[in-house]
Structure formats: C-alpha cells, structure tokens
C-alpha cells in the first residue's frame, strides 16, 4: 500500500491540505558590534529567566594545516585552565551557579556556548569565567596531554564504528587535499605530534576579534545583551582576519571504496561535492532534498529503501553547506548480504529524481511541510539560538527568517528540477561501503509469509 501515489483518500485530508500557511511571528533579530568590533546577533526572549549565548570562532578543522586535530584540541582544552584557575576551579565556578558550558569544533567553526540563569548573581560569575577561558587559556602541558589522550581514545572509538569509518573515508575521498578533508578529530600521528606551542599559536591567531561572532537569545533587554557581549568578548585581542578556505574542486570521476569491518551490517555513503552556504541555490536544493531524502519517512529514499523494501532502519539524504562547498550525501545501513540491492535502489532513486524531478503533488506537500513547520523550528530558545548562530557565523541577512516562507512559496517545480540537475551528477559519485562479508545466515524466518 504505501507508495508514492499520493492518494488524497478519505475525509481526513479534506480541508487540511488547503489550510493556508499560518502567520509565523518571526522574532526580531537585533544586530550591532561591540566597542571592540565583534558582530553581535540578539533575539530577546523574555518568558523564561535564562539566556543562551554562542561564541563562534572561525577556527574549525579547516584551519588545521599540517596538524589534523589541532583546532579541536585547542577548543577542547579551553576549559582545562585559564589565568590562575585550574580546570577544577573553572568547572566549580560555572556549576555552582547552575551554568552549562559547551565546546564544539567542526570543519568551519569552533564554538563555545553558555546557558545560564539571567539573575546577575548567577549570570555574572558564569560570564566572567567564560570570558577568561576565551582570552587567557593556559594550555598547561598536563591538561593538554589529558585532552590529547581523550581524543586518542575517541579515535579508537571511531575505529570500531563502521559508520565513523565510512564518514572519514567519504570526506577523504571527496576533499582529498582540501582543508575539509582533514578529519576534525585528528589522526593518531598528528595528535601525538602537536606541541603546546602549536596550540598556543593556534589560539593566538584564531580566537580574536577579527574571527568571532556572538549570538544571544534570552531574557535580556538590549542594554543587558550589549553588556553580556562586551563581557564575553570585550577582552579579546584584535587579530587578523584569516581568508576563507579555497574553493572545492569538483569530482572528476566516480570512485567506490569497500572497507572491510567485522560488522553484521554495512554502512553506505554515496555522494559528491555539494554547495556552500552562500550558494544562490541553497533554498531550492533544500526543498529538493527534503523531497528526495530529507523529509523523514515520507521522503522518496525512505519510501524506496525502508517502507517498500525493509532494507534499512535509516535512509536519508542531505546537503551540508559550509563556508565552501560541503557534501551532498545519501546514507543507509543494511545487512551485509543486501548491500548490492540497497546500493542499486539508492542509485536508481537518485538518477530518477535528477532526471524527472519531483511530482507536483509531492512538491506541494514538501513545501507545506517546510512552511507549515517553520513555527516549530523557531519554538524555544535553544532552537532560536541554533538558527541565530548559523545566521551570525555565515553572515546571512537579518531578514533571513522573515523571508524564509516567502522564498519557499516562490519556488517552482522547474526551478527545483533544473537546480538539482545543475548541482547533482548521479554518474559521478563517491561511494563508500564499510562492513563485513556476507556471512551465511540462517534464512530469516518469516512465519507469516
């Protein structure tokens, strides 16, 4: 029964699909620069006495150079000591006021985030602490070694995970010697080689006014948010803007990698170089991908792989736009003896979608899902802060949220189809398969068939 004929069956659909898009009250984004020049993005959310702040540095693994893992080691070591405070003191200062500190490091960005109650007696100590670890981390040798050991253990964890192995191989095949090919979590050889001076130097060059933006969502007025931003980054040195990573060369040929692993299931990643966050086709490809494999169980890929054939638990596709072109990929996992079938279905699905584009009804329903669900994405401070962080880091326009529904509503089927054909070449893909040889299985019992 479940297939892609979008039957408008039964009374349940009547009226509902005709419902117009709700008017979404998009919160206002305020934007200014601190006295020392740091761009700040702020949304006031006055209902709960709490605030989320993200400090985003242009200091991700694309800046690793010859030392994969350097950006992450630096980011993870910030909270291990600052000024004359040890890691114990830092943790204690934050947690005794109920504050939560987060650090994360990806390919483009290195982020420090703070969630705190807004009453000054809680907020103030938390902010002072974060400001200090941004500005004067000590990177004590002992602390660095500890974080290094933790990262080495995490690397071992990746080596036992077929999904992680597939991901690393995929990025490596896609980006070769481009900075995005450098694994954010590093390599064992590199992690062991990184010196304290290299970490200090990385911090000195990247954790600066010229390379940071701040996003704040919470129970503050404008002047409260200004004070918060000043307190967080007011002490950072000026620094120099670092040029963006170079453009990513397109794939020249298809490539298939099979990596053995003693797993009962094989992990498949199929894809190519996608788009940058600034690409004018961002929205139209977002819509197209939502239909192909980004929209959950109703997407074409999930229907073909999971709903119709029972080949996998998870099957999806995604664009991951970055400062430069991020990947487009399809991902699924299936029992080892079904790999060829699943691969064939995924390839065929992508080819058909690229050639034919979506059906009208499917496009309309995906559009309804995206626009009708926009209010959901903006509900809650955490969701808003994540949106705001992206807007801030990539310098998207301040009316980005306001215009989102209008842009989605303005796109035609033909635009989706031609944009897809411009960007996706199903005959030129990187395919990575990590898993075991098909082992002789007892035939799966199907007592009811």
């Amino acid at each position, binding site marked *: 029964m479940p297939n892609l004929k979008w039957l408008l069956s039964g009374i349940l659909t009547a009226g509902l699909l005709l419902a117009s898009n709700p008017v979404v009250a998009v919160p206002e984004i305020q934007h200014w620069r601190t006295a020392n020049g740091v761009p700040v993005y702020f949304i006031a959310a006055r209902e709960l006495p709490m605030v989320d702040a993200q400090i985003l540095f242009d200091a991700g693994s694309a800046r690793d150079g010859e030392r994969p893992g350097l950006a992450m080691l630096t980011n993870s070591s910030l909270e291990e000591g600052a000024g004359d405070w040890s890691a114990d003191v830092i943790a204690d200062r934050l947690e005794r006021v109920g504050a939560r500190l987060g650090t994360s490091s990806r390919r483009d960005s290195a982020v420090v985030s703070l969630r705190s109650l807004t009453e000054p007696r809680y907020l103030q100590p938390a902010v002072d602490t974060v400001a200090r670890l941004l500005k004067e981390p000590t990177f004590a040798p002992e602390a660095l070694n500890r974080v290094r050991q933790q990262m080495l253990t995490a690397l071992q964890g990746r080596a036992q995970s077929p999904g992680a192995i597939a991901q690393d191989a995929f990025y490596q095949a896609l980006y070769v010697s481009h900075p995005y090919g450098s694994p954010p979590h590093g390599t064992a050889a590199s992690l062991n080689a990184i010196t304290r001076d290299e970490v200090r130097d990385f911090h000195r060059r990247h954790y600066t006014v010229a390379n940071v933006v701040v996003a704040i969502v919470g129970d503050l007025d404008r002047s409260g948010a200004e004070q918060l931003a000043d307190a967080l980054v007011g002490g950072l040195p000026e620094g120099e803007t670092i040029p963006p990573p170079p453009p990513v060369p397109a794939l020249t040929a298809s490539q298939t990698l099979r990596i053995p*692993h003693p797993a009962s299931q094989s992990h498949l990643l199929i894809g190519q170089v996608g788009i940058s966050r600034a690409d004018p086709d961002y929205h139209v490809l977002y819509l197209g991908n939502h239909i192909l494999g980004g929209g959950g169980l109703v997407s074409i890929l999930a229907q073909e792989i999971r709903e119709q054939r029972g080949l996998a638990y998870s099957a999806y596709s995604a664009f991951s736009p970055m400062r430069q072109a991020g990947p487009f990929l399809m991902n699924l996992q299936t029992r080892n003896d079904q790999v060829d079938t699943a691969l064939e279905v995924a390839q065929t699905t992508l080819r058909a979608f690229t050639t034919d584009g979506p059906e009208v009804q499917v496009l309309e329903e995906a559009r309804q899902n995206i626009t009708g669900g926009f209010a*959901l994405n903006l509900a809650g401070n955490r969701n808003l802060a994540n949106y705001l962080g992206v807007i801030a880091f990539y310098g998207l326009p301040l009316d980005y949220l306001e215009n989102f529904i209008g842009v989605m509503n303005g796109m035609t089927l033909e635009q989706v189809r031609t944009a897809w054909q411009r960007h996706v070449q199903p005959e030129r893909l990187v395919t990575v398969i990590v898993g075991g040889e098909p082992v002789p299985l007892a035939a799966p019992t199907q007592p009811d068939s």
Partner: protein
Amino acid sequence: MSSSRILIALLWLALAPATFAAPPVHEFTLDNGLKILVREDRRAPVVVAQIWYKVGSSYEPSGLTGISHLLEHMMFKGTPDVPGGEFSRLIAANGGNHNAFTGRDFTAYFQTLEKDRLELSFRLEADRMRHLLLDPEEVAKEKQVVAEERRLTTDDRPQALTREQFHAAAYVTSPYRNPIIGWMQDIENTTPEDLRRWYQQWYAPNNATLVVVGDIDPEQVRDLAEKHYGPLQTSDLNPPRPAAEISQLGERRIVVKTPAEVPYVMLGYKVPTLKSGDEEWEPYALAVLDGVLDGGNSARLSRHLIRGSQVAASVGAGYNLTSRLEELFVLAGNPAPGRSSAELEQALRAEVARLREDLVDPDELARVVAQVVAADVYQQDSLFYQGMRLGILETVGLGWNRLDDYVARIQAVTPEQVREVARKYLIDDRLTVATLEPLPLDGSRPAAPDAGVDHHAIR
C-alpha cells in the same frame, strides 16, 4: 578553605529562591478512562501532543521480547480509514513532525504541530488506538526494518552490546533483563497474531494518558479529546504479573568479548526507585548521590578519575528514579590509554567506598542543588521535554504532580542521607560488573563463543 566553604553555603541559600514556577497542569479524565494533562506554554504558536500507553518491554513475557517496540513500528502501517503511510503523509503535509518511542515502562507517540492543527493529531491517534490493521506482509517487512535497527543500535556497537549483556546478567527475574528492542530471535519469531493480541490488550483509552503542551486552551483540548477519543471502547486490562527481582546473593561478573578497540567497564548496584521502594526519601538521596559523582565537570568522577588520577578517558554515573521497577545505579567508563579496565573498576569502587565512609561536603550538595534548580528552568524551554516528564510520571503510576515538589525534595536531602543510601545499597552483594574485552578488528569474525552464552552467535 573554610572561608570559601562559607561563601558557597551562602550562595546555596541565595540560590534556593530562584525556583521559577512552571505554568499549572490541567487534568481531566474522560468517561472511558483516558487521562488528559494540559500545560499552557504560549511562547510560540505551537503545540505538542503525546499519547502515552502503559506498556513497554518490562511488560513482555519471555519469547515475546521486543513486541512493544515492533508494535510501535506497526502503528504507522495503517487502519481501515487511514491506509499505511497516510499518517506520516498527513502530519508532514500539515507542517508537523511526529515520531514514537518505546521504553521499558511506556510506549509513546507524539506530534508537534502549529497550534490550529491539533485536531489532526487527535483524529489520527484516536483512530489508530483501536483500529489498527496488522497486515502480515507489512509485519514481515517491518520485522526486517527492526532487525536492521537492532544491528545498527546494538549488535555492531560494542558498548551497547556490553550494556545489553550487563542487564541480562544483573537481573534474574525482573523483565528489565531484556532489551527494549528485543532479542533477535524474538523479533524474527513474532507473528501478526502475537501483535494483534498485544495491541488489543494494551491500546485502549483506559490504559493511556494524553499530554498536550503548548499554545492552547485547556478547555479546547478537553472538547477535542471528548470528540475524538470519547467514543473509544475500553479494554479489559490484565496487569502484568509481578516480576520482582529476586534477592541478589553476591557479586556478579561477566566478560563480553567482541571486535572493538576501546575497553569499557560497567558497574551496577541494585537500588530502589520512587515506585519500587519503601522509603520515599531514598530515591531522592540516590539522585543527589548521582549528582555528587557525575553532576557535571566539577563532580567527583571528572575531578578525580579524568583529571586527578587520569585513570579514565571518559566516565559517568546514572540513576533513574522514575523507573517502575527496581533499578541499577550504574557507573561506567573507558580507561585512559595505557590504563586497564581493572584499574578503572578499582577507582570506581573506591569512589563508592568513599561515599559509604565519609559525609559529602555541604558545598558539593550546594552545587548539586544549584544545578537541579537551574535545570528546572532550562527544562521549560522545550515543550516536548515538559510533556515527556508529565507523561513518564503518570505512566509509571507515580502521578504527574510529583514534579511539583521535586526541587524541594532534592533540597531536603542531607549528607547523612546520602551516606545512608550508599551504605545500604552501594555494596558488593548488590553489584554486577561487566567488562568489554576487545577482540581484534581485523575484518574476520571471532570464533563463535559457547552456545547459549552469547546470543549473537545465533546470527
């Protein structure tokens, strides 16, 4: 040192009044027994509806493990009025998102929608509460999907596999010994008829709680619920037979050998919960003890084992006081490179021994309380999570209003009480230890272990 102690104690006092009251909960019950809980949260024009059934893996008899979870998957496969796939399609086309989750003590379904579309959720959920089709072909296909889910989330993940074996070893008679997703052979052998019986027994208004959180008027929720859920028939409920865990008579140990790189060790002590215990203060004291060990980067496990002795690369503790049955207080971690699982186990046992011997410092308690007070505010940022807390408490039989005094109960815990629960429960005779021993990842399969020891040899 003593002056900073005083300062911290003052901070503790200062923190106490910070509790920020959550909006009230409105409670109704329909004639057919469906309980409805509504919390208004007007921050965004959005509403979350969750329907919670009192059934989960801890209700399952031997041979039918995983049936609650498999049924959860089948709930998306259609009714006479809403054919397979339509449910997801309708929610998506109305801008919503939806999913479901199965636990040991509950099965829950949810939709998040723009506030004016709440009725769609009620219409669809009420329909599939009593009218599910269980087409044999769809069942066969979905069993394959669940088998893939099991491979993805357990079989090919060394730590998850260890955790599964750990629970199977720690419990003898408690149904918490079985995995939520079920043993592979049970997934394979479950029939459509098994599913039909399970469905008819447990999916009924008198075994469910509807939780709605969002930009919505409670009276409107009541009216809509009456309209859609009101006509549904009740079911004769046969509560699962009591399956209390028998007394443990000494320490248990298991080893799990599987291809892996990172060693892992788990310790679990049998402890009471709010529902399963006799002394009401004990679970709160155990929750505080959990915070002393693992309440953030300043807590003892990070401070002593990751930083101090550096025996652990990662380490944590966990305790769930809202479980329906007797629980495990778990400590687990990966040894640091060059250190062994045995060393990490000894370090964890030493931390537990210290809790039995010494009173925790007032400033440690103050920090735990500060985090609980702050978390109580942070949790109100998520509609979904607010609903989840209400739904769990109601479904395990504690009642949602346990939320009201949670912070006060945590604040009331004394250092003496923390030591008392440590002395009573965190003792060797209540302990199970599981150690993951990595086998080489050379692409070849290990020799099959002795039959009957490792169910994965069955594959």
